[in-house]
């Protein structure tokens, strides 16, 4: 009972911290946008008269002091109102949320690709520690970490789409369109995942319960699948949760290469078009994704590993 209260208080505290993070992110973005350029000048044609620029600034509320502007923004933002997109004339949050499924699809395919490559390779490297196989896998990981997504993307386009005509070059709208960009997104996460899994498995293999499993006659395969991988998964899950920020920034580049209509493309367009409400909403949704993932991680930790103390 007392412990349950402790966990609840812990979670409440985490939520409060993450809310502060969100407000901080929103404030930073707000200030950065205003510092980077005078948005009124940037949005209006260069030949607009100073009076018209001033009038526009007033109409947008940009003539107010920064704290006043931010307070007004925050008051609307907590109600989900980020203003109206300058490009689309529609609520900015809706414009961003519309793109979430496309980017999520890319992320899910990317995750599947990353796991499909990293789990077998990482396990192999751990089981064959010190052999040429281990070296080859680690070499592959270094190579994977060194090739930028836009290069890999272009190589895949040239080989698979242009050369073999096996998949579409670019665009969105079908499963086939997800394959190449999803692969590129996934490959970016693979090297880190391989290294973490390998290290984690090596640690697990040194534990008593693995020795016991081997001693009771289980095959190497059964030990790996039933005991080792499951226990080695905790740091891997942690890594993946923290990798979401990296995954999202990778998606922005990959979406551009493949002309894929997701959140990344939207954000790039919004930045070049100075669509401030959409930039704000995009950053908010991205930050929220990361914050919620971290929060879930915190909660999951307290459930799966009681040793993680609910410290004050």
């Amino acid at each position: 009972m007392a412990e349950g209260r402790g966990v609840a208080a812990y979670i409440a505290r985490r939520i409060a911290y993450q809310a502060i993070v969100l407000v901080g992110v929103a404030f930073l973005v707000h200030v950065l946008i205003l510092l980077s350029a005078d948005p009124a000048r940037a949005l209006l044609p260069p030949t607009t008269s100073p009076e018209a620029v001033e009038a526009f600034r007033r109409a947008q509320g940009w003539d107010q002091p920064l704290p006043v502007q931010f307070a007004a923004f925050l008051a609307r933002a907590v109600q989900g109102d980020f203003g109206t997109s300058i490009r689309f004339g529609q609520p900015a949050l809706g414009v961003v949320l519309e793109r979430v499924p496309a980017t999520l699809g890319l992320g899910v395919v990317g995750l599947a690709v990353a796991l499909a490559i990293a789990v077998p390779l990482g396990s192999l490297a751990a089981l064959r520690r010190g052999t040429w196989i281990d070296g080859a896998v680690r070499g592959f990981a270094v190579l994977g970490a060194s090739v930028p997504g836009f290069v890999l993307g272009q190589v895949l386009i040239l080989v698979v789409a242009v050369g073999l005509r096996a998949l579409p070059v670019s665009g969105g709208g079908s499963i086939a369109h997800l394959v190449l960009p999803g692969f590129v997104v996934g490959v970016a996460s693979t090297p880190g995942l391989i290294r973490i899994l390998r290290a984690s498995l090596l640690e697990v293999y040194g534990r008593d319960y693995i020795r016991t499993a081997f001693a009771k006659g289980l095959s190497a395969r059964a030990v790996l699948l039933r005991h080792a991988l499951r226990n080695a998964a905790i740091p891997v899950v942690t890594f993946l949760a923290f990798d979401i920020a990296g995954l999202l920034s990778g998606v922005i580049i990959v979406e551009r290469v493949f002309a894929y209509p997701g959140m990344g493309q939207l954000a790039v367009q919004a930045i070049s078009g100075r669509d401030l409400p959409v930039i704000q909403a995009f950053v908010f949704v991205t930050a929220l994704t990361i914050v919620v993932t971290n929060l879930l991680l915190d909660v999951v930790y307290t459930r799966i590993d009681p040793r993680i103390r609910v410290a004050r």
Partner: protein
Amino acid sequence: MTSSIVVSSRRSTAALLAAVLVAAACASATSPTPPPVGASPTPEPTGPTGTLTIALSADTESMDPHRVYQKAGLSIMDALFDTLIAIDRADRSILLPGLAETWTTSPEAIELTLRGGVTFSNGEPFDAEAARFSILRVMDIDPATGQPIADDALKLNSDYSRSYGAVTSVEVVDPLTLRINLSRWDAGLLPALATLAMLPPEHAAAVGNEGLKTQPVGTGPYVLSEWIPDDHATLVASDFPWDRERGKALVQEVIFRPIPDVSTRISELTSGGVQIAQDIPVDQAAAVEAGGARIVSFDDGRHTEIWLTADKGGQLATSGDATPAQLQAIEALSKVEVRTALNMAVDRQAYVDALFNGFATPMTHAFVPGDIGYTPVIEPWPFDPDGARLLLAGAGYPDGFEADLDVCTCDAATSDLIAAVQADLARIGVRTTIREAEIGAFNGAWASGATNPMRASRLSFLDPNIYGLFWLHTGGLLSRFSDPEMDRFVDEQAAQMDPARRRELLHKVAALTHDLAPAIFLVGFQSVYGVAATGVTGWQPHILGHISVLDTAVGG
């Protein structure tokens, strides 16, 4: 030779059409844009067929044509909307009937006779009310009262508004007659009308300014069937076709796909995913041809020049915190010998060959091929660093001088060019320091009178009166140049109603810009397109730089 079609009140419709035909015939011989690709398509009697897919370098900024300025978006607007007057796609000096069949001009007014029986894609009739609404909308004038819109939040702030400074009011004479009353004649008005999309007033009232950003309704040859922003816009041939002089819709479905990454755009072209690709970088042209597609290019009117503060720091460069070096630079640039020397110090042909792979044209004056004022008779400045040094020494600057050069971060594409110019100027002792600024600060600093001696400017204009000559006129927007003769010619051509006479006056302006060298004129750029080797016929680049799909057929 071709000339603008400005219909005097005495001309009949037949005479107008004859003139248009003659002009079009002349144009085909001297057209600045290349001839159509493939054989000329024979229109199918059954109507438009097939699908044409086009790779744009960006998505449209909006579906509201009065807020679209980039050529990617204008390509879509060209298909969705019509204008009162049309511009021949091969020669911007040829004006064709659009939704206005004829027009008469006088210093007091332009009167247009509109085509009857045309409807918008939502069924609303196109009439003089719609035309009046569309013009007043970009002027931020309330059509109900004829007065400027007071509420700043309701203003459109359209870039197109600047072309209508001479318009005092717009009158509906009868349902098919529109009268645009003027305070003075402005030769830029007719070409401006050729870029002003006609919108349906009832639809606009129903969805508002915000709704128009996503719900386009026009009279155009195509209607929007689906728009997934940043992915594709699918257009289908309109059910309300009418015979447009500017071209016919021969394709049933057009898909515009924004593909920002150029390598991906080229891959789509060479793999057959798209038939036309916009904005092929000059260094990729060979790769496109190696991939089996064609390269089509033409001088599109964009050009880069370096404006010089040439009014002795007079009205504009008045900032009190000028350094001695800045003051010396401004003093030096007020001398025509110095400005000429700068123009002789830059090796334009080397820029064209080395930086643009030949897809550019050296400038000899303020206009480039395709501009109404362009004249090929002006001799280029010789590339002569020794002669330039002599001129500098004669003007009292044997050791050259130092000067700040403002460059916009938005012009990153021309940073190689500016660096090459910087190196060439250094060779005659003019040591420039590049000061990069983001566009707001870049324009603001020059307009506010900060003491900037030089500024790299990238321009392109539909007509010299629309963003073309302002910087050359005493007291003009962003102007740091003043010469009474220049002012006279600029003013006279703007008020001139006879196209031939106007062209002569513009040639005088051209010659003066060469002789007085208010800028270091660099190079004019070309638009470069990739086109599939087979399957596309009749396509030709549009002189205004966007992609027009009219008269283009697929298959065969």
